[in-house]
């Protein structure tokens, strides 16, 4: 009997060509070495509903129910790591595309830009573990409901979470229905040479600019992108068949040391007046791994005064960015250079 060590897991991400269908060629999965990416943790939980028959039986006892519909929940965290090559997307590109709703725009040798759009994208998350005899899993039809990037700690990290259509699993594969197999005719072996690129960025190397002022006393900051998206069912299907897009909110939370500068006074004033300001956060300093987040028309919210450390700190929580017009999609832009 072999146990499965937690660290002996490799994660692969594939942007799906069609929602909930694992990319395949005549039923054979096309997951490849280049789809691998390093990760801190990946969770794919799938537990179909248990449908109890509501009719009276004439006795007080409960009888066995039926397996019903289910939606999976996933979460992934990784170090913030660009490809290390300017103009080449990071390994986590499929998740970024799904979160932003748009493919990256690449400027050869210079930058990769993620801008917001209304497209509904999904990805397949593969978890291959050692030994190969334990369950190998593929979560099909993953959509991103929240993505969060954190500045301030040793290694910068991001976390994302969302829901997915169905979990294909090597142990139960043979007993799954065609619908549950999500396009596959067999569960694949792991690619032989998983390939990952780039170094992690230091979370304390970067900058934070608010309303044109560089805020050097920033202690921590997070960029958050939330998509109020859901998966929907069609009559005749056990698993979701489509993505419904809802309200998109990009925002920022941050904490800084309070001082008597005009830059800090300005933020306190703007949090009261709700006058919109532009902000940007940069993580990293090495080419191919510099992440610049630009937030448009942020309305500061949730000002708190915190005296739990030696110096007073000001916290601004849950401040949302806004599009510059009803047709613009410029609340948040990410450029990796």
């Amino acid at each position, binding site marked *: 009997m072999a146990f499965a060590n937690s660290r002996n897991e490799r994660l692969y991400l594939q942007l799906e060509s069609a929602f909930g269908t694992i990319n395949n060629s005549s039923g054979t999965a096309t997951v*490849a070495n*280049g789809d*691998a990416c390093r990760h801190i943790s990946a969770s794919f939980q799938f537990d179909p509903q248990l449908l109890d028959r509501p009719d009276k039986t004439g006795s007080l006892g409960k009888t066995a129910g039926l397996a019903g519909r289910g939606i999976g929940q996933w979460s992934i965290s990784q170090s913030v790591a660009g490809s290390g090559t300017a*103009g080449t*997307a990071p390994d986590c590109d499929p998740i970024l595309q799904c979160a932003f709703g748009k493919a990256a725009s690449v400027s*050869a*040798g210079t930058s990769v830009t993620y801008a917001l759009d209304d497209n509904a994208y999904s990805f397949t998350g593969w978890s291959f573990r050692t030994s190969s005899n334990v369950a190998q899993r593929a979560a099909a039809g993953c959509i991103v409901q929240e993505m969060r990037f954190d500045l301030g700690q040793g290694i910068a990290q991001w976390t994302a979470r969302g829901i997915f259509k169905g979990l294909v699993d090597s142990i139960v594969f043979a007993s799954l229905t065609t619908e549950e197999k999500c396009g596959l005719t067999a569960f694949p072996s792991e690619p032989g*040479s998983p*390939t990952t690129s780039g170094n992690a960025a230091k979370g304390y190397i970067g900058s934070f600019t608010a309303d044109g002022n560089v805020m050097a006393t920033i202690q921590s900051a997070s960029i958050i992108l939330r998509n109020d998206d859901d998966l929907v069912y069609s009559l005749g299907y056990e698993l979701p068949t489509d993505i419904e897009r809802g309200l998109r909110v990009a925002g920022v939370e941050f904490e800084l040391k309070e001082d008597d500068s005009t830059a800090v006074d300005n933020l306190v004033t703007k949090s009261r007046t709700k006058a919109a300001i532009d902000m940007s956060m940069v993580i990293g300093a090495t080419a191919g791994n510099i992440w610049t987040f630009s937030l448009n028309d942020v309305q500061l919210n949730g000002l708190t005064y915190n005296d739990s450390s030696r110096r007073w700190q000001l916290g601004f929580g849950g401040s949302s960015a806004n599009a510059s017009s009803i047709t613009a999609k410029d609340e948040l832009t990410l450029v990796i250079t």
Partner: protein
Amino acid sequence: MEYAFVGSTCVIRGVAELKALGQRVDMADDLAKSVILGNAALIPSFQFDALGFTADELKHYNTPERRMGAPDPFMAKYRKALITLHDNREALKAGRDLPKLAVVKPLEVK
């Protein structure tokens, strides 16, 4: 075919750990296609050689940290390497093959 590395770091499990500009790795075409499409910064070594990096440049500017502030002539070559990488990747995405070194046979003199 032989490939040269133009990125920062890249691990191709069981094949190579790439850390330096110009580091060479020999691999099958199918694997090369897969990893280049998957964001590995590799170009065929004959394309790399054609860029004309000097031994000194490859010694002094072989990591991203060392490339910060590198002289313009070197950065111009490095930028061409990245554009070559981009063009190769776009070709692969479009279903074409990576460029191959053309072998020109001498004309037979009868």
